[in-house]
C-alpha cells in the first residue's frame, strides 16, 4: 500500500507529536507514505478568496503522481475534498490550471489517514497487530472538518469509524453526543473567549462519560483540547485533567510501541496515568 502524503503545515510545529506517531505506526503497518515534494499550504480557514483556496488545493492534488493522497489533518482534508468537488466546474478548472505548472486533471482521491486505516487497510488486519488490548474508555472526538462539509467514508452527523477503531484496539468508545461539535480551535487567536467556551462544553460532556482520554484526528482540535485545556480550567475554575491523544498514538500504544516513541511527552496534559492504566512500558 502506497499513498502520496500531504502532511500539512501543523505537522512541522504544533502537531509534531502527531507526525512522530503517524510515521511510526504507518511504518509498522507497512503502509508507505511518500511525502509530496514542494507541497504548499491548503490555506486552512484563512484564505478568504474561493478561487485562491481552490487553486492551492488543486496544486497539491496535481502532484499526487497517480496515487491516492493521504493527509493527517482535518483542515487539509476538507480543503482537498472541497476543491475536488469545486473543480468539477470546468470553467473554474481551466482558470485554476492557468496558474499551475503541473496541471490538475481531477484524478486524485484525497483521503484522511483515518479513512486509510479503517477503510483501505482494514480493521480486521489492524486487530492482528494489537499486542496490548487497551482496556480503557475513550471519547471518540471527530471534530468538524473530518466529515463536513463532505467526505467519502463516514456520516457527517453520527460518524462511527473512530468508534470502530477504538473498539478494535480493545478500548471502549463511550457514547459522546458532541463527537462532531466544534472545539473552538479556529477562534483560538482571534476570539479566545468563544473558543474556550466551546472547549469547556466538550470537556464537561466528556468528563460525564467517565472516559480516560479523548481521541482526536486533527492538529487543531489537539491544540485546542490539549494545549489550551489548562486555560479552560482556569477560566471556568474546573478540574478537567483529561488526556487528549491522537488516534495514531492510541494505535501505537495498542501495538506495543514505547510511549516515548509516540510523542506523548510533548503533550500538555500528562498522559502517565493513562499509560499506567494501559500497562504499556
Amino acid at each position: 500500500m502506497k499513498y502520496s502524503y500531504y502532511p500539512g503545515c501543523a505537522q512541522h510545529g504544533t502537531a509534531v507529536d502527531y507526525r512522530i506517531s503517524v510515521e511510526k505506526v504507518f511504518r509498522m503497518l507497512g503502509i508507505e507514505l511518500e511525502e509530496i515534494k514542494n507541497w504548499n499550504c491548503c490555506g486552512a480557514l484563512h484564505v478568504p478568496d474561493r478561487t485562491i483556496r481552490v487553486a492551492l488545493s488543486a496544486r497539491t492534488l496535481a502532484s499526487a503522481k497517480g496515487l491516492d493522497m493521504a493527509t493527517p489533518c482535518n483542515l487539509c482534508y476538507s480543503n482537498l475534498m472541497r476543491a475536488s468537488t469545486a473543480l468539477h466546474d470546468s470553467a473554474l478548472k481551466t482558470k485554476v490550471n492557468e496558474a499551475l505548472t503541473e496541471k490538475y486533471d481531477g484524478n486524485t482521491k484525497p483521503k484522511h489517514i483515518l479513512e486509510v486505516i479503517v477503510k483501505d487497510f482494514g480493521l480486521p488486519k489492524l486487530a492482528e497487530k494489537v499486542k496490548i488490548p487497551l482496556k480503557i474508555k475513550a471519547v471518540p472526538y471527530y471534530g468538524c472538518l473530518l466529515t463536513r462539509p463532505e467526505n467519502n467514508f463516514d456520516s457527517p452527523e453520527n460518524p462511527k469509524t473512530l468508534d470502530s477503531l477504538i473498539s478494535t484496539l480493545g478500548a471502549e468508545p463511550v457514547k459522546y453526543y458532541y463527537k462532531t461539535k466544534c472545539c473552538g480551535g479556529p477562534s483560538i487567536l482571534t476570539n479566545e473567549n468563544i473558543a474556550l467556551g466551546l472547549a469547556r462544553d466538550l470537556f464537561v460532556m466528556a468528563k460525564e462519560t467517565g472516559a480516560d482520554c479523548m481521541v482526536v484526528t486533527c492538529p487543531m482540535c489537539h491544540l485546542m483540547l490539549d494545549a489550551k485545556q489548562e486555560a479552560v480550567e482556569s477560566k471556568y475554575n474546573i478540574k478537567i485533567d483529561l488526556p487528549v491523544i491522537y488516534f495514531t498514538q492510541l494505535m501505537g500504544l495498542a501495538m506495543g510501541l514505547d510511549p516515548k516513541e509516540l510523542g506523548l511527552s510533548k503533550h500538555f496534559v500528562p498522559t502517565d496515568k493513562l499509560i499506567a492504566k494501559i500497562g504499556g512500558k
Partner: protein
Amino acid sequence: MKKETIIPESRDPAFRDAVLKTPVGEKIPTCMQCGICAGSCPVSHEMDHTPRQLVRMVQLGLKKEVLSSNTIWICTTCFSCSVRCPRGIHPTELMETLKPMAIAEGIENKDSKFDTVFSGVVRTNGRASEFLLISKYGLMEPGIIKQLPFGISLFQKGKLPLSTYKMEDTKDLDAIFNLGKSKEKKIKEENNVEGKNPEGESKDSKEETKATKALQENKKPDGGVKK
C-alpha cells in the same frame, strides 16, 4: 420591546443579486426561515445576527447590515448548518463568500487582519509557520501579547519552531494568488499604475506583487479608506 422595521431605502438589490450570482447563491431565495442553521450553530449566541437572520437579510439586500455584521467573522466554519439545511443552502459557504465582500467594503477587524496575515505568509512562503503567523499578527493586534506565555510553553514543548517554514520553490504562488483579484481591486490598482503601461503583463504583475506586499504590511494598496 420596540420592534425594528426595515425601511425600503436600506435595501440594495444589486448586493442581493451579486450574492445570488456566486457559487453559493443559487439556493438562497428558497430559504424558508426554519432556523435549523441557527439551532445547529455552536456560536450563534455570540453573533449579532444568527445565520438564519443573515440569509433573510441577504434576500432583502441589506448590504450594510450584512457586511458589517460580526456573524460572518464569528462563524467557526464548522459546516453544521451546511450539512443540515433542508433547502441545500450552505450558510457556512455563504459566510466565506461574504468575507471578501466585506473586506472590499473596507471592513477590518481582528479576524480579517488574521486572514490577511495568513494569506500573506502563504503567498510568500507557501507554508504557514505558527511562529511567523503569531509574530506578524501580534504586530497588527498587540492585544494577543497576553498569549505570550502560551507561545513560550509551546516553544518549550518543541511545538513552536522559531524558523520560517518554506517551500523549496514558490514559483506557482504569485500566479495562484493573482487568480483571486476582484474586478474592483484590479480597477483600483490600474488607477494606481498611472502612466505605466497597464496592459504590459510583466509590469502589471509587478504591481500586483507590490500591492500584496502592501497588504501584508497592513497598508491599503490604494491608500483607501479603512473602517
